[in-house]
């Protein structure tokens, strides 16, 4: 006989928020939030924007519906809410910036001819409230076994993915089919997609160049394979050997992640370019002409492997850490030699991690923009082509859209192949039963192999970073002028104390923007990523497969494509946010969220579900279980997600390069400008500062998140031993 007031209240609260958003907040963008009611949908509706009335009316009807008994379960409430959602979308799309989008709308509403701007605080709040209300209504009908929290998460994530992933892609896809005047042109589309500079195979059959698509694929496969191998070698070295300098190795392997993209390219040029240090050294030694071999595939490949190995390393390390050591011990006790154990137990358990790592690296490579543009020479890849189609002298959104669709298709195919390879095996190894065991050390042969891979990498990385560290603090490292100087730092980051702190350096603007955009984006990204992983892995709800597929799809979209699609979708109402910091944050969140999700899924797949069920039977709801049981157990995944999303937000280029504005410039865009202008030293100096800032931030994140303790005996690390359990 319990009256569930609380659940009723949730619905009323959403409805209240919806009403507030219509009467108390400015509906359109531009109006400051304190203008409140004066610029609300209600007052805009009264001053001519008649197309807002249907929405307001249906919300009033919803309010009336709440007075009926069990209104949340009633069909009326559901239909009214769906209707309100439709009208909400309709009011946004019916009238554009310069007038009605359909003739009849103009006929009905005179004011439509003046157009409307994008949605503001009220508009966005209304959207959020509608989503919340819908989630509440479907939860009352048994969706998610009646769990409101899970229901809201799913509905909200679906709405957000629709708005910020699928809607832009859809708009971009449409743009591929229209000519420069905006008319449907299938002929143009066909000409664009069959262009010979896309599909040529000349480089494989003999001399000449390959098409840009072929180039992209060759680069992606090579780069992802090498990066995964290197990441695996590093992960094995850290997790499965008694190698003494693990901490140092971890630190070095983190370096490339926190390295702004162009600077590695610049360092490689300074080392191996035609006048590079190594090149001229070798040329002098062997008395040959210095070559340009580094420009093109080899250079990009080196830079990419260096850049992606740390990501694959982190993914594979958390997979290795989550493998229950008792499984390996079991194999050993069954008589398997260490190599056999590795092959038959460890390796199969690593497979999801390997697939995730390869997939990540491949997609990163397809989307990579920074390295090809610095090191590409004549080696053209899709991301570069897309960029120049939008930013170059010939603005051609249609062509950019076509190229973007090809890039997207490539990524989707890769993704599909990976899914097939991974299969549907269960990889639960950390169960509620505690595991007291030791990770098996690596077999001797593999150990040698691992060192053989890692050692050259260490040397090479050190060389690159010596350049980066010194380059910013000497006069001209490229011409081997090593006179120490702070001139570059001063140019970028000069500040003085006169009437308080004054920032004069040319880099301060982009630095500050980058920092706070990253600081806002990282926790949001992690939150959404981990939540999504949890929903997909643990909730049974109608449409789970479609939901999973949708998030996977968003995972597959390369940054360059995201960038162009945002340009295509978000510089017109109803969501007119180009040029704001919000678009940067949104872009980061949905671009990086899948990494958090992947990490979360991999971690959750190793954790027995019965622990969450135990929590539920003890009275904990979804949110509490997530916070107190799940999150502590998947801390490595949370850490990975946080670090990755923070650092990517600070170093990303591919999507951002399309979205920065004069007011919200990002560090990477600034550095790219310096590299293009040939100011290598300034670029390097800025990058060095940026890296130091990121190291500090990563350490802070580690401090906040902490590490997981499962009570495994730490013999590999040589720590003190826990007493033998006794009955």
């Amino acid at each position, binding site marked *: 006989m319990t009256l569930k007031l609380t659940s009723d209240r949730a619905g009323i609260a959403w409805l209240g928020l919806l009403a507030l958003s219509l009467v108390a907040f400015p509906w359109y963008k531009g109006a400051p939030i304190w203008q409140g009611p004066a610029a609300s949908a209600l007052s805009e509706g009264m001053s001519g924007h008649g197309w807002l009335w249907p929405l307001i009316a249906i919300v009033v009807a919803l309010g009336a519906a709440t007075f009926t008994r069990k209104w949340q379960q009633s069909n009326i409430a559901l239909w009214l809410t769906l209707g309100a959602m439709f009208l909400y979308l309709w009011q946004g799309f019916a009238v554009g910036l310069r007038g009605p989008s359909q003739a009849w709308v103009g006929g009905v509403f005179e004011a439509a001819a003046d157009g409307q701007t994008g949605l503001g605080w009220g508009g966005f709040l209304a959207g959020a409230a509608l989503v919340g209300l819908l989630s509440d209504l479907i939860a009352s009908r048994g969706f998610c*076994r009646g769990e409101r929290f899970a229901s809201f998460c799913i509905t909200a994530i679906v709405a957000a993915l629709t708005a910020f992933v699928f809607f832009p892609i859809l708009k971009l896809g449409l743009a591929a089919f229209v000519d420069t005047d905006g008319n449907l042109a299938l002929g143009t589309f066909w000409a664009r997609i069959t262009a010979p500079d896309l599909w040529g195979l000349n480089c494989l059959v003999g001399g000449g160049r390959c098409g840009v698509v072929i180039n992209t694929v060759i680069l992606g496969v090579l780069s992802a394979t090498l990066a995964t191998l290197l990441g695996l070698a590093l992960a094995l070295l850290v997790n499965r050997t008694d190698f003494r300098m693990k901490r140092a190795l971890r630190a070095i392997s983190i370096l490339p992640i926190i390295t702004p993209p162009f600077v590695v390219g610049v360092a490689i040029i300074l080392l191996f370019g035609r006048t590079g240090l190594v090149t001229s050294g070798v040329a002098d030694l062997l008395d040959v002409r210095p070559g340009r071999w580094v420009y093109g595939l080899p250079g990009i490949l080196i830079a990419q492997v260096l850049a992606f190995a740390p990501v694959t390393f982190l993914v594979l390390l958390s997979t290795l850490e989550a493998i229950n050591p008792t499984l390996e011990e079991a194999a050993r006790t069954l008589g398997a030699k260490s190599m056999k154990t590795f092959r038959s137990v460890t390796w199969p358990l690593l497979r999801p991690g390997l697939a995730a790592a390869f997939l990540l690296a491949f997609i990163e490579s397809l989307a990579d923009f920074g390295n090809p543009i610095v090191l590409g020479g004549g080696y053209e890849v899709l991301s570069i082509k897309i960029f120049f189609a939008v930013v170059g002298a010939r603005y051609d959104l249609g062509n950019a859209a076509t190229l973007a669709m090809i890039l997207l298709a490539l990524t989707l195919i890769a993704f599909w192949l990976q899914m097939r390879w991974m299969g549907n095996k269960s990889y639960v190894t950390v169960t509620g039963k505690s595991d007291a065991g030791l990770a098996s050390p690596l077999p001797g042969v593999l150990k040698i192999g691992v060192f053989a891979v890692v050692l050259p990498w260490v040397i090479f990385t050190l060389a690159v970073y010596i350049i980066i560290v010194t380059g910013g603090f000497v006069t001209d490292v490229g011409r081997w002028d090593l006179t120490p100087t702070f001139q570059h730092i001063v140019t970028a980051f000069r500040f003085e104390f006169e009437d308080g702190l004054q920032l004069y350096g040319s880099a301060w603007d982009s630095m500050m923007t980058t920092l706070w955009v990253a600081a806002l984006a990282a926790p949001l990204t992690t939150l959404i990523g981990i939540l999504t992983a949890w929903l997909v892995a643990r909730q049974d709800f109608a449409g789970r497969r479609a939901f999973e597929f949708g998030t996977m799809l968003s995972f597959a979209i390369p940054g360059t494509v995201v960038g162009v699609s945002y340009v295509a979708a978000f510089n017109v109402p109803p969501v007119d946010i180009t040029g704001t910091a919000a678009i940067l944050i949104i872009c980061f969140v949905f671009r990086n969220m899948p990494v958090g999700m992947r990490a979360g899924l991999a971690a959750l797949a190793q954790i027995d579900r019965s622990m969450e069920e135990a929590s539920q*039977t*003890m009275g904990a709801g979804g949110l509490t279980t997530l916070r107190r049981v799940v999150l502590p*157990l998947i801390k490595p995944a949370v850490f990975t997600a946080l670090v990755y999303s923070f650092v990517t937000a600070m170093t990303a280029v591919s999507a951002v390069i399309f979205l920065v504005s004069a007011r919200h410039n990002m560090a990477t865009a600034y550095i790219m400008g310096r590299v293009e202008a040939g100011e290598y030293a300034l670029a390097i100096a800025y990058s060095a500062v940026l890296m130091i800032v990121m190291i500090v931030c990563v350490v802070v994140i580690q401090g906040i998140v902490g590490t997981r303790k499962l009570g495994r005996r730490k013999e590999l690390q040589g720590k003190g031993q826990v007493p033998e359990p006794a009955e």
Partner: protein
Amino acid sequence: MAETAIEFVDVVKRYGDATAVDRINFSIGKGELVTFLGPSGCGKTTSLRLIAGLELPSEGQVKIAGRDVSRDPASERNVGMVFQSYALFPHMSVLDNVSYGPTIRGVSKADARDQARAILDQVGLGGLEARLPSELSGGQQQRVAVARAIVQQPDVLLFDEPLSNVDAKLRRKVRAEIRDLQQRFGLTAVYVTHDQEEALAVSDRIVVMKMGQIAQIGTPSELYEQPSSAFVADFIGDANLIEGRVAAGTFSAAHLSLPVDAADGAHTATIRPERITLAAGGAAIISSASYLGSRMEYVVQDEDLEFLVSRPISEPRLAAGDAVDLQIDPADLILVQ
């Protein structure tokens, strides 16, 4: 069985096309320990999860303490559950594991810890509060899991095959402990197992399940002595299933001919191996004789029928090849479907 603690009314649970639980009805009295017994895939674990709220029924009602909880999620039911894997939180100490539930339900941290300490003392784990689960033996982990499940004084305590991860030698001891705790706290308990011996040992009543349906409900002795079907007879203990015919109040098969109270026609009868006595010299032949320490086990061939016979070791031993006569008390012969 004064008060009803749990009641299933026409409960159905489907997963897509598969029906895991097919319209079952039963009720469990307060303070009873009832076991769901059956082969894997019979729906016993699903039934347990339906009580816990980890699954919601597709049809029908689940009632706990008289209240219909069919639509309540697990977190809103007052149940305690001991999982097969124990599901202890590996990142929390023993004390935190046990006080987790009370803190969730709004008990202050200090009080929750006091409650947890009291229960841990009761289950004999005093002094191990600060350990992590990984630092305990299997038996100790299991007791933590039980302590965690009973600390909130649940309406019903659920066990999902709790002994499957316990050392075989310890099982007898652990199941006695479980039974003792359940009695001491006067808890209503539901216990899932596929081990008939375990079921017989701990239960007040047993629900034998087969393919999502209830085959029979009864006390251990009822099930053993009065099985209603060949399936139950065969699943609980060893049983001889005899295909025969009834004519004019007499059941006949091979050389057997026993008076029964049944209609004419084909029937299946069961007889327990220890209820058959063997007399030397007869039409049946012993095809194998096994010495099992506490008893002798014979397989006896009588025409096309094979009988399993179990005799105390104190009786004169027979050997394979001996001719014997099978002697059966008509009261021990049970006709089943």
